[in-house]
């Protein structure tokens, strides 16, 4: 406990006795010690006994299940929020189309713009078709 010589200090001597008792019980040494040490060993032996209650045997699996349940709840919330965001974007797009319908119609009436759009859209649409995949090599 302090930095004095163990023999000089009664508190230090007592502490060392306690530690000696703890070590003897931990190592399961034979009990042929002096009476004072034996009394500490009796105390330590009681302190090393298991607690009167314990967690249920399936505690770990219960907690793991709860973690999975909470993760699934979080995932559901994320999915719900994604749908809400997507709906807002679609509505905004529709609003823009309605607001600038004249401009959009002029784009559709321009054949060159329509051809350009078809050039982009056609490969994408063809790629979605089943069995229409580029062969390697």
């Amino acid at each position, binding site marked *: *406990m302090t930095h004095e010589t163990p023999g000089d200090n*009664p*508190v230090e001597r*007592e*502490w060392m006795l*306690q530690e000696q008792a*703890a070590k003897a*019980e*931990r190592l399961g040494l034979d*009990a042929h*010690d*002096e*009476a*004072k040490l*034996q*009394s*500490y*060993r*009796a*105390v*330590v*032996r*009681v*302190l*090393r*006994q*298991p*607690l*009167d*209650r*314990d*967690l*249920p045997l399936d*505690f*770990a*699996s*219960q*907690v*793991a299940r*709860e*973690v999975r349940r*909470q993760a699934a709840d979080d995932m559901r919330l994320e999915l719900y929020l994604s749908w809400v965001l997507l709906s807002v974007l679609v509505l905004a797009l529709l609003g823009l189309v309605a607001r600038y319908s004249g401009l959009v119609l002029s784009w559709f009436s321009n054949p060159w713009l329509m051809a350009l759009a078809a050039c982009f859209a056609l490969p994408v649409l063809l790629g979605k078709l089943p069995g229409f995949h580029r062969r390697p090599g």
Partner: protein
Amino acid sequence: MSHPDSPLVKAVLANAPGAFERLVREHQALCWHIIYRMVRHPEDARELCQETFLLVHRRLRQFRHESALKSWIGRIAYTVALRHMERKRIALFDPGQDEDASSPIDKLSDGFDLETAYADSEIAARLHQVIETLPPLQRTLLTLYHLDELSIDEIAVITGLASGTIKSHLFRTRLRLREQLEVFYGVAP
């Protein structure tokens, strides 16, 4: 990383099947000892243990291997128990109890018969009763040191207390228990 906890931590973070359950199984005894010793109410203690491991799962990415995983989880369990006790206004330790704790050394005698002590399980039961009446902090420190066989340094990480404070608590409490033991035996001081 060569830390022995790394594979398990990585497996939990990668959501490997059964990894978190294994982590709980490996550390639930320590968690239970800390919380049950502090709180004493089995149902509350069980719920707080669950809360501890949910926090562990949520915060595992913040674990930096600065201490052993065991100590890190123990620290969370201790904090959860402490918060519960603050909510319930339960005192962690009795500050007045230590005042006359140095005197028992002089009162104790050497006349103690170990054979009789071990033969008498009633004495053990009575010592358990005395342990139950100890303040939560002392109870917990004794259990961590003797039952879980943690070092003073590991207990310091878990409780946030200085090593000297832990030693002082251990010393005074064991002295008190020894005194009680000899009182049961009717050994004259």
